[in-house]
């Protein structure tokens, strides 16, 4: 039951982050589009991490697998945020 409760809470959190991303996406002004994009990317990668850790069970995986997954999430965030802010 604890597991059902945990994954259901994670699902609710994922829906909440989706709604927050939607609001940021709709409300982003022309002048702050880049900052909004970084926030949107950050929220998306938070969701990716939650899905990996709690749904794909990476939380119980051997350390190397967990390290690879966490590195992936961080690397994708840093790469996409950097490209958003630097490439013109």
């Amino acid at each position, binding site marked *: 039951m604890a*597991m*059902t409760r945990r*994954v*259901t809470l994670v*699902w609710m959190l*994922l*829906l909440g982050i*989706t709604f927050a*991303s*939607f609001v*940021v*996406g*709709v409300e*982003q002004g*022309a002048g702050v*589009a880049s900052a*909004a*994009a970084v926030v*949107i*990317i950050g*929220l*998306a*990668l938070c*969701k*990716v991490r939650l*899905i*990996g850790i*709690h*749904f*794909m*069970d*990476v939380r*119980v*995986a*051997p*350390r190397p*697998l967990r390290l*690879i*997954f966490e590195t*992936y999430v961080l*690397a*994708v965030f840093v*790469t*996409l945020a950097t*490209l*958003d802010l*630097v*490439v*013109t």
Partner: protein
Amino acid sequence: MTATAPQEAQTRAELPDRRIPGEEGIWVFVLGDMTVFALFFATFMYSRGKNPDTFARDHASLNVALGTVNTVLLLTSSLFVVLAVQRVLTGAHRSAPRLFTAALACGLGFVIVKAVEWAHLFSEGKTVGSGEFFSYYFMFTGIHLAHVLIGCVVLSRLIAITRREELTGHTAMLCEAGGIFWHMVDLLWVVLFALFYLMR
């Protein structure tokens, strides 16, 4: 599947604290696929940075509400899959086929919404040849849609194998590996949704 000696599905209590969810092969595939998609994401961001006005204009043609509905559908399907796999791993697999069926219904819902969305875009004359943004959009969401369809086939198979009276450890592993594939499909969509629908 039938080659393994009959054995009870391993219960969660018997599982070691640290273990590879599913099996090693599925992780090689999933991490490889995620890496390819990461390159797609980076390519898209680079092109967007070079053509911000064109991308912002074409982005406005997408229906954010439909994209959001599809995100909710995939997240919900993932919840059903987690619960189904949990039932299988704890030996209480009788409700697993129902949960996998609910996940499949959400997956098919995603396909229908995507078809509606694409039909609308085609009717407006937007195709894969309608500029850089739509080339990326149709290519990446098309490749992702192929993953969803493969995932639906996987879920159909899992519904069939969990209907059996007794499950082997191998069957439990197949359910977990199939679930990991489905979650990857969900995970990739989460980023595609952010890049195409939310970022201006």
